[in-house]
């Protein structure tokens, strides 16, 4: 039986779609961990990014945090906190807590950097005019800066979400559920069908998330610029990845 046949057989076997190890349960676990991590990261990074972008205070600290966060590998971070969280809670401390923590650390840098770079990139004259019209600082942030910076801010959330969904897979190396289970268990048990079925599921999920969020970002960009299409600048053709 070839790999493709084995994968198709595994994916279409009704037994793999039910029970506690079934695909719906694993998918729900995967999305649950990703979503919780993303919400925690948003709650931390979004206000911080908006604050730094608006006041321009503490940008050095924000860049420093983002740099370190980007440099620390997720799996090393999981390893680092695992013995500590496990001492508190032997079950979830081995799977859930370290994974969520690592995913939060993964999601914070892109959200933080984009929020603060987006707000800072808003034309200073527009902000000055709003201030001259008597808007309070909070009104300036809410009515002027956030709407204008929305596409950039959403870009950060999108890249955080896609990275988190893709990387939640790593939790399976430890005891976390989620779709990564199939990849890790399939490899360990020499079960090519399960392994490739898992690969297909995980890749499909990550690409779907990327597609959906890209669409959302385009909608938001259309809403702020007044046209449905994002102006195709050089930046959209080849978005450079540069660290500060």
């Amino acid at each position, binding site marked *: 039986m070839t790999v493709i046949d084995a994968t198709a057989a595994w994916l279409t076997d009704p037994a793999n779609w039910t029970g506690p190890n079934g695909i719906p349960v694993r998918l729900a676990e995967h999305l649950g961990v990703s979503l919780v991590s993303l919400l925690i990261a948003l709650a931390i990074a979004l206000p911080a990014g908006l604050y730094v972008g608006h006041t321009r205070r503490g940008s050095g600290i924000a860049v420093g945090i983002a740099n370190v966060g980007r440099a620390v590998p997720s799996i090393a971070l999981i390893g680092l906190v695992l013995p500590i969280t496990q001492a508190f809670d032997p079950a979830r401390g081995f799977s859930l807590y370290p994974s969520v923590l690592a995913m939060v650390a993964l999601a914070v840098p892109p959200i933080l950097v984009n929020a603060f770079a987006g707000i800072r990139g808003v034309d200073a004259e527009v902000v000055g005019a709003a201030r001259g019209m008597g808007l309070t600082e909070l009104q300036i942030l809410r009515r002027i800066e956030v709407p204008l910076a929305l596409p950039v801010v959403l870009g950060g959330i999108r890249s955080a979400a896609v990275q988190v969904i893709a990387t939640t897979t790593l939790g399976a190396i430890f005891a976390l559920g989620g779709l990564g289970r199939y990849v890790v268990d399939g490899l360990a048990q020499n079960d090519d069908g399960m392994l490739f079925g898992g690969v297909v599921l995980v890749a499909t999920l990550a690409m779907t998330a990327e597609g959906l969020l890209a669409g959302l970002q385009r909608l938001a960009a259309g809403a702020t610029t007044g046209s449905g299409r994002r102006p195709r600048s050089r930046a959209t053709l080849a978005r*450079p990845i540069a660290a500060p």
Partner: protein
Amino acid sequence: MIDWGWLADHVPALLYRTGQHLYLAAIAVAVGLAISLALGVLAARHRRLVLPFTFVADLVYTIPSIALFAALVVVVGLSVLTAEVPLVLYTLVILFRNVVAGFDAVPPDVRDAADAMSYSGTARLVRVELPLAVPLIAAGVRVAAVSTIGLVTISALLGDAFGGLGFFIFEGARRGFATEIYAGAIPTILLALAADRLFVRVQAWLTPWERRAQAEVVPG
């Protein structure tokens, strides 16, 4: 909490794994840079190629690393290639974009001036455009090196012969042995941070004329 005796017994293993880690990462970044430069030059000549290349690269980047490593085992079997192919693919995503952006950042006036001085296409590319593209390419190498150092740990999934320091994280987790997990995790983090700092230096050294212009935050 830390079993110092175990650490003392495993100094040679730690050194060996650190070496393996750097070796796997260095090959991936070097090969990735070579391919990206070739593709980038091609794309600079034929703009139509940029979008499809970027699209494919973005697609690869969304595939989770453990899925790609695991898939490679079945496709090409177990060898250094199994570890290197995914690592190189991930560096391409970062490096290709930055090479293209680097060539794009060359001011048109400079290109025209080079043409007026009758530089041939290749000479213009190597002696005029490439040096001006260095800041963005170097920034890409920095990000690629740091991310590759993280990804090398995942290759431990393939078996004990791979993974660099990731070997200790995997084995430690399997055995529930905190000291061994730390022996893998802490040096990995330090290596990644050191690579980050190192490439900031390299970047500054390669582009002395940019010394005063502070590096800016570019949203990913």
